[in-house]
């Protein structure tokens, strides 16, 4: 941290505004579900080097509409393409959904904290995702599988409302066929030909194969899902200090200057989005913090 501050003191001389965006071209659009899509992007300026840590996010700018924070969903070991999976829910993301291959999008980042891949070495890793929450977790799955021998058992627990809401379906099928990754899926409501688990994702925690006393848990989904997921994990014996979650708040700058994303004493954009649970648990029970 001290090192970073020194760095910023010297960069203070630079007049390059951190609010400037870089133009990226959409190379490919993948329709993940009826309202969720992935964009594969490459920088127009060439170079193509985009380094990020799993769990970090970018600010995405749609020309003339606005800017939103979106987690990076691609493989952190690949410099191209930059991948973002987004659900169309607001003004900017709905406009983003209408973009086509060849269109331009603006990027600033990467920002924020990341999943604890170093701290998790030597431990079992439990990945719990709810709905679109799998998107910020996919980079950590790529990372863990690429460094597979450094970790114990790896368990992915993924729940969505219906089977149609599942992201990365083909990838999930591949992951499920691996022997070095335990993948458990569940849906709130079974539709179509679903023959799998039915129930919220927390129901998977009790029977998932990991050693709770030697596990690191990474959790992402709606706040209510994360809250009850963590309670289940703790009940099984996972340590609060080995449990990590990813938070979301209104962000305008992404770099701790605009104040919008404050959650108590922390700025979700720079202290988060990934928090160790014991550092943020007080916020879960405080209304309108």
């Amino acid at each position: 941290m001290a090192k970073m501050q020194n760095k910023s003191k010297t960069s203070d001389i630079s007049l390059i505004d951190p609010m400037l965006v870089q133009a990226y071209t959409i190379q490919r659009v993948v329709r993940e579900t009826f309202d969720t899509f992935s964009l594969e992007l490459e920088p127009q300026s060439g170079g193509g080097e985009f380094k990020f840590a799993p769990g970090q996010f970018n600010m995405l700018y749609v020309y003339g509409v606005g800017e939103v924070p979106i987690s990076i969903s691609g493989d952190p070991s690949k410099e191209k393409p930059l991948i973002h999976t987004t659900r169309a829910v607001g003004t900017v993301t709905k406009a983003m959904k209408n973009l086509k291959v060849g269109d331009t999008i603006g990027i600033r980042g990467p920002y924020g904290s990341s999943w604890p891949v170093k701290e998790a070495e030597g431990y079992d890793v439990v990945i719990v995702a709810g709905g679109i929450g799998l998107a910020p977790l996919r980079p950590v799955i790529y990372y863990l599988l690429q460094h597979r021998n450094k970790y114990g058992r790896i368990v992915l627990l993924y729940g969505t409302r219906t089977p149609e809401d599942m992201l990365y379906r083909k990838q999930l099928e591949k992951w499920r066929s691996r022997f070095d990754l335990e993948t458990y899926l569940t849906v709130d409501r079974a539709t179509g030909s679903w023959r799998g688990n039915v129930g919220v994702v927390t129901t998977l925690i009790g029977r998932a194969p990991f050693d709770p006393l030697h596990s690191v848990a990474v959790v992402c989904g709606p706040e209510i899902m994360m809250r009850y997921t963590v309670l289940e994990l703790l009940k099984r014996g996972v340590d609060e200090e080995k449990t990590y979650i990813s938070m979301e708040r209104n962000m305008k700058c992404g770099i701790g200057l605009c104040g919008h994303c404050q959650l108590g004493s922390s700025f979700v954009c720079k202290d988060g989005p990934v928090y160790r649970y014991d550092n943020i648990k007080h916020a879960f029970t405080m209304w309108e913090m």
Partner: protein
Amino acid sequence: MNNESKSVIERKDFQALFDALSAEGYKISGPTVRDNAVIYDEIGSAEELPIGWTDHQEGGSYRLTKSKKKTLFGFILGPYTWKKLLYPPEKKIWEAQKSDRSFEIVEAESKPIKQAFVGVRPCELKAIGIQDKILRDGQHSDPEYGALRRNLFIVAVNCTNPGNNCFCVSMNSGPGVSDGFDLALTEMFNGKDHYFVIEAGSRAGKKILEKIPHRPAKPEELEQAEKAVERAASKMGRSLDMKGLKEILHNNFDSHYWGEIAKRCLTCGNCTMVCPTCFCCNIEDTTNLGGDRAERRRYWDTCYSVDFSYIHGGSIRSTDYSRYRQWLMHKIAYWQDQFGTPGCVGCGRCITWCPVGIDITEEAGAIREKA
């Protein structure tokens, strides 16, 4: 502080300060009277200062009156803060020109002008230091703010006559300055003699002082000036007991008393606009009607608006009490966790300019009592 380094400028020579600053290329801003208030704006001469004006402040009240004393700094503080000139209320960041399927970003021009602020109160100097931590010294910084700060010359003015809403002593930010200035003044006026005890706090300050007619200060002049500032410390209109307040606030997040405050709070955001440390801003992207040009602007924002915390699905802080609580918790408690200092300097502006006169010292005190 070394008393030997202190000098005296006579009132008749005060214009020389402006001339020296102008000659060095500084754009001078200082207090001046407009619309029945003391505001900060560009001024060219000492005659534009609020000569003989003084202000009377209460919760929700500000009145300017003419006094017989022809003091230059006989007022307390107006609604403006220096952040207006270091972190403008509205700023264009960039423009984007649309081409076929792409766009090109053109960074807005920003000229790091040389500015001199004449009449910075000790509490305001402390506030500038707090904003430095946020906007300049963090992991990310605002480049324009950093450039303006580097080119800034500060003439601080010690307080000898604090107001009803002042509590800088509680916040350890006044009534005298200790560092962070280029020149610091104490205005002395006894009906007959009118002079300024002046001290240089930097090399740039010394350079300017050399160009102004001045003489070494006499021991009795120094003593009187020091006493005047000491007396000011005992004349604070209000106080805020900071002892353990951070923990008390953290522990009383769920207090019902927040709801009592909200019965009066209009959530207008005035307190955030007049606060010298509030830094929250909004980023807005717009396009022209033709759609071929877009721009990004930054505006001061307030945590009192419902929009402030809006994410898909609604606002995080939809109730009025939660927004007042956010502001006060941030000022006193969160700020200390974030930046190692409270976000309050005791200037009292939020009390004066609150339309219903809500008083931060009173409300924080009430939370303490009810704890």
